[in-house]
């Protein structure tokens, strides 16, 4: 695992709020599906660290601001269309989380047959790692590895991801490494 320079983290970080920009969404995935996916992605991280994520009452006050943007969207890191760069997020305590609106975001590969479909859940889980302070990992199986192939799902936090984020925030008292190991064995 790796951190951004200066090892930034949210402090205090017991409760962080998030919201999806209502003006920058995708129309072909229902808002309830998107909310479910982000809730699930945040839950993966809160299961291992003593940080809770909750949906903000309004977008402007959220700690973490999520949106789907196309091309140049004003942060100096323009998106590039289908595939290429999929998303980016900023280190603590910035909170910006941007996804390329031109990707073919998928919530279910069974129903989405596109060859360029990208798993929203996997990308969300990866970018939340950045929001929490993790940089890219060299471990190929880790969620924080920088690339993700189309039609691939990589959502289960690996030892490397967990060790990295717990070094920043400590461990969730209910988390057991043994549960992670058995889950990973099952995945393999």
């Amino acid at each position, binding site marked *: *695992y*790796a*951190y*951004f*320079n200066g*090892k930034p983290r949210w402090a205090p970080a017991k409760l962080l709020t998030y919201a999806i920009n209502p003006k920058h969404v995708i129309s072909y995935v229902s808002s309830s599906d998107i909310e479910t996916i982000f809730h699930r992605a945040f839950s993966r991280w809160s299961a291992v660290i003593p940080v809770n994520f909750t949906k903000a009452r309004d977008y402007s006050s959220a700690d973490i601001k999520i949106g789907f943007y196309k091309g140049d969207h004003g942060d100096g*890191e323009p*998106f*590039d*269309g*289908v*595939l*290429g*760069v*999929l*998303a*980016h*997020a900023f280190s603590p305590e910035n909170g910006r989380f941007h996804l390329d609106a031109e990707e073919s975001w998928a919530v279910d590969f069974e129903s989405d047959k596109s*060859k*360029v479909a*990208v798993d929203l859940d996997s*990308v969300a889980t*990866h*970018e939340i790692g*950045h929001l929490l302070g993790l*940089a*890219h990992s*060299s*471990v*190929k199986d880790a969620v924080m*590895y*920088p*690339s*993700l*192939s*189309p*039609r691939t799902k990589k959502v289960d936090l690996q030892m490397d991801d967990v060790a*990295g984020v717990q*070094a920043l925030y400590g461990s969730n008292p209910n988390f057991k490494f043994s549960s992670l190991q058995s889950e990973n064995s099952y995945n393999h």
Partner: protein
Amino acid sequence: RILPDPAVTVITATANVSHNATWHDFTKFLDAGKGSQVVGMSELKKYFSRFGYLPVPEKTNFTDVFDKQLESALTLYQSRLSLPVTGKLDPETISAITSPRCGVSDAPQQQHTPAKLHATRR
């Protein structure tokens, strides 16, 4: 049984899809080596610069020459992405470069490696 490397599988799975045009063009650099000059190599240098492997040149633009700096960037890239470190644009490296990825740079990091265990004779 030896399972195929997932990164290699990526090539097969995505070879016929409409990749991001700029990155997909990088396949033409396959097997290019130090000293070679291929039109568009400067785009590959921009890629490495964007993701933190090459500094942005101060005075001139990137050239199309596979120079020492590009070789160093390539080696660093292969090392950071746990690819075989060959210093060459081999198929596995080209596959990794053309794969969709996160836009966050790989560079500004503090690397952490697991502490080594030391044995003590008793």
